[in-house]
């Protein structure tokens, strides 16, 4: 990510925060949506640059044989973590702590589902060695 792009993201975040505080007392709903919009804007820019780095990492991992299937769950868990963190923080901003923790729980369940085959194969390899 270039410095100019980072500057625009910083400016957007600060502006959204200030404007959000301004309208929070009258219309807290739209203030929350403003926070969400700024978050979506920043994350879109971040993932576009992260995506190039990840694609390059994927090429490297494809070279080393057998690493692809252990590399993919790691990446998926990162994506799951980002998504669940974003939505739980938005719920916390709205004051919904129960919703936030339930979303985090759903993220944990999804991460478990994704990494389960990997854990099973590790246990199998360990069992074969014994």
């Amino acid at each position, binding site marked *: 990510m270039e410095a100019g792009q980072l500057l625009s993201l910083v400016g*957007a975040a600060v502006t959204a925060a200030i404007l959000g505080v301004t309208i929070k007392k009258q*219309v807290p709903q739209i203030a929350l949506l403003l926070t969400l*919009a*700024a978050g979506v804007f920043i994350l879109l820019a971040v993932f576009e640059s992260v995506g190039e780095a990840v694609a390059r990492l994927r090429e490297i991992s494809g070279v080393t044989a057998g690493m692809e299937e252990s590399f993919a769950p790691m990446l*998926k868990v990162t994506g799951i973590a*980002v998504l669940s963190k974003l939505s739980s923080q938005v719920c916390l901003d709205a004051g919904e702590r129960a919703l936030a923790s339930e979303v985090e729980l759903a993220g944990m369940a999804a991460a478990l589902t994704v990494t389960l085959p990997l854990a099973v194969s590790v246990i199998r390899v360990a069992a074969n060695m014994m």
Partner: protein
Amino acid sequence: MQVDLIFKIAAIGIVVAVLNQLLIRSGREDQALMTTIAGLVVVLMILVREISSLFDLIKSVFGF
């Protein structure tokens, strides 16, 4: 997504806040609520497209 989207949403928020205050002060609280909901719907329509493109990007980057 461009930066001016954030400013658009903030402008809608400010307009709705001002209208809200006006309507509440003149005693029409139900119309104030309807104004708020209308503003909410407009902002949501703008945002849903961006949120869906964010999810598509996450899917493609992280390999879902």
